[in-house]
């Protein structure tokens, strides 16, 4: 379920001396007696506010047989609560000039409401009402309604999209069946059908308590007044029980796992994936820079060879999918008509092998880090939405415990040298521990990459 791109670039940057003073977001943080973590950030440049909420639960907390539940639940959070009849969450917010969305991944579920600053109390009220009183209006019919919507989301984003099922297959092969990253966040159709109203009640009581959430309120706010509103609306919500920790088995690939999938596509596409260090653990940042060296820009190694020079691939991309319990690094490339995935894999393997013996040039890293710098600064412009300042603070808090982790994050990339990249490639991009998937047009398995055994 790696599906929608949420973070275009991991945070980063370069030219540390010049920038370090700007790579910071001011905030004040406190905890309500019921355990809710609250962070406030002021930005008075426009009359806008954002209320951004993270619940520290994602599809990684689901159980086999109930996959897709965290995400289905996210949808139900918009269907009304104790003092907000069904349909009114969106109507009242829009009538005040506001907008909202939510998203779920394997580790967490987040929500934002962006609104004009005069509607701050409404947004806080709406968020608090569903945190405290979601079950008051929930019925089996509400669950059925969103079950259909989510099934259509799955059809639209996976089943009816070219190559859309590849990521689901890859997760299943990277992580063992008992590991919570084995299944996709969107869930299986069978599990979505099986989700019951009783599951909703249990999930809400277990995970949607203030002590398992954090709220950032950012923008054109008066902090003292905002604290009063937070106390007024979130304060009365009862603390929940401690949330049970998850204890996943270790994911480890002891061999190369190759497979072929047929799809309704014109051109074959190759996916190569490795298990890599968890988000913010040693090695994670190296993988981000490696992705830049391999496929960031026209001069990157794989783009230059496969797409620009040889012209045997239509596209190539690589990325580190950073997650809390363990990440994966993925390279994918689509063959041009008349070319096979074996040709493509051969070039990718050559470039990986080169990096295992010879460090990249400093300029290759600088190009990537300098681009990170700009995109990092660009993200400090807006208050709301996914990726705005409220979301950045909450995301860093959730992942690292420090809302203003900008400079630390940045410093990781600055500290990486070319030999670190080589060491990381040696350690993580192992030939004998990876998943290689060929997606080929129906009836054309000969376009798949057979691997070394079958290579010419």
């Amino acid at each position, binding site marked *: *379920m790696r599906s929608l791109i949420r973070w275009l670039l991991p945070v980063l940057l370069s030219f540390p001396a010049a920038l370090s003073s700007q790579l910071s977001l001011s905030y004040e943080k406190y905890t309500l007696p019921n355990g809710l973590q609250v962070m406030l950030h002021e930005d008075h440049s426009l*009359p806008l506010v954002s209320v951004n909420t993270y619940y520290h639960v994602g599809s990684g907390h689901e159980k086999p047989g109930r996959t897709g539940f965290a995400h289905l639940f996210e949808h139900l959070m918009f269907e009304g609560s104790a003092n907000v*009849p069904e349909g009114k969450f969106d109507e009242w917010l*829009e009538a005040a000039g506001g907008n909202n969305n939510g998203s779920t991944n394997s580790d967490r579920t987040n929500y934002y409401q962006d609104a004009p600053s005069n509607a701050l109390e409404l947004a806080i009220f709406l968020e608090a009402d569903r945190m405290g009183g979601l079950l008051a209006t929930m019925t089996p019919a509400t669950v059925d309604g969103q079950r259909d919507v989510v099934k*259509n989301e799955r059809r639209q984003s996976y089943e009816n999209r070219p190559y859309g099922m590849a990521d689901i297959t890859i997760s299943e092969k990277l992580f063992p069946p008992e590991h919570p990253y084995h299944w996709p966040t969107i869930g299986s159709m069978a599990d979505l059908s099986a989700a019951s109203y009783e599951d909703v009640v249990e999930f809400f009581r277990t995970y949607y308590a203030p002590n398992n959430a954090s709220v950032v309120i950012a923008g054109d706010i008066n902090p003292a007044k905002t604290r009063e509103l937070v106390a007024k609306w979130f304060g009365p919500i009862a603390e929940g029980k401690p949330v049970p920790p998850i204890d996943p088995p270790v994911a480890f690939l002891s061999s190369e796992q190759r497979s072929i999938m047929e799809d*309704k596509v014109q051109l074959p596409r190759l996916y190569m994936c490795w298990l890599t260090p968890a988000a913010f653990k040693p090695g994670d940042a190296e993988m981000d820079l490696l992705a830049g060296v391999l496929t960031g820009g026209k001069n990157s190694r794989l783009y230059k060879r496969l797409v*620009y020079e040889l*012209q045997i691939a239509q596209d190539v991309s690589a990325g580190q999918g*950073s997650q809390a319990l363990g990440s994966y690094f993925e390279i994918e490339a689509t063959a041009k008509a008349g070319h096979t995935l074996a040709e493509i894999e051969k070039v990718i393997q050559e470039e990986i092998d080169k990096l295992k013996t010879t460090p990249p040039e400093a300029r290759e890293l600088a190009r990537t880090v300098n681009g990170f710098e700009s995109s990092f600064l660009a993200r400090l412009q807006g208050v709301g939405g996914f990726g705005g300042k409220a979301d950045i603070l909450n995301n860093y808090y959730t992942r690292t415990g420090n809302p203003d982790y900008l400079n630390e994050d940045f410093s990781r990339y600055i500290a990486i040298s070319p030999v670190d990249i080589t060491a990381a490639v040696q350690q993580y991009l192992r030939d004998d521990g990876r998943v290689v998937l060929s997606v080929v047009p129906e009836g054309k398995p000969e376009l798949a990459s057979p691997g070394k055994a079958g290579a010419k």
Partner: protein
Amino acid sequence: MNPRTCSALRVAALCLLLALLSTTVPSSAGAQENPIIPGPPAPLKLPGLQHFELGNGLRVVLMENHKVPLVEMEMIVRGGSVLDPAGKTGLATMTAEMLEEGAGTRNSLQYADAVDFLGASVSAYASMHSSGVSMFTPLSKLDSSVALFADVVLHPAFPEQELERLRNERLTSLLQAHDQPRAIAAAAFNAALYGTSHPYGVTSIGDESSIRGIRIEDVRGFHARVYTPRNATVIVVGDIGIEQARGVLERHFTTWSGDRPDFPDLATAPQVASREVILVDKPGAAQSEIRIGRIGTDRLTPDYYPLLVMNTILGGSFSSRLNQNLREKNGYSYGAGSGFDLRLAAGPFRAAAAVQTDVTDKALVEFLKELDGIGELVSDEELDRARNYLALLYPSNFESISSAAGQIAELVVYGLPDDLFNTYVDRVLAVTKEDVQRVARKYIDTRSISIIVVGDREKVGKSVSALGLGTIRMMSIDDVLGPAPTPGVGQ
């Protein structure tokens, strides 16, 4: 490099149209009132626009924003895909792509390396009526970045071998479009409304024959004619003042010369004559992509603000009627919406959704019900909600320098006055129910409308035909996009 997180969003942006939305809430829960009524919104104060002109006639418009040390520039020229000559569809977009394939003293790879190393980005585009180059840079690299930006505008190399590479990539994209339900639906829809001899009716990357036919001389000629300083405006937004902007642009753009070209008027396309259903077969499709629409109007219409409000109620926000009906009430879709493409000439109005295959006919009925229903007077509550939704988050368009540049670009392309930014909110809030009804009846008429369904004909053909909506045309994907090209083969 897109490190991806596994994220499933509640609402994804549906192509342009988008937002979905609204209505009809069952009020069985009792007339529960919103307990928190916001006070009056804070006034919006945007920095003003500053204008100046270089000696060669190049106009510049600046909006300062000193929040972060970044600068965005966008050079816009009049003229885009509408200028593609017969048989050379795709020339405007190809010219734009070729700008990035080497400029000044640098070849394609050297140019990309120089831009990337600065942490900057330079990207060229062509749209229907304009073409442009955007540049984004850290303030600390301003001069070096503007030098590279000017190089692609003034001194593109247009190497022949890069045209061959891009031609092959483009033919491959055309081949891949055969896999993509949305691309197929868009092509079928545009052709149904405008016909394939009108620029709005064809795909702006071209078809196989036109892509194969573009020569390097065509690219050079398009550039020489269209990319001239007297035909251009540079938008500057960011951490920069007028003197610094003038200085850096004078340093790099003064040698640019050329006159303002004259362009022919665009032929007026006739409105869709009757109600027609086009069913494009995509065997095995899990969903049907639906597009319903007709020719709408242009950006300079006096009906602009009523149209914005009307569309917000119909299909422009989450709580809009189409989204509430197709998604929230019936669960047929992940999201439904509608929108007007407002251009220099009348662009399309379209309503859209991807619906699960087995309810395709039911979904069409609901679509038509909402398209007819919007012609009745809307409620006060819907009107207020839509007006506030459009007006009160308007400031967010100016949060980032890239987004602000986009707002200014609209003024440039359509010749709109600078005071639009400061009058927008009041004009939206002044729209009445009667205005909404008037424009709904004027622009949305389900008796003359094209209905496109891209889906599994074996499963949906019979039930869609049984609706008796109008004439039905069965098409294959090849009928819509042309036969799948074989890139690399041929000339």
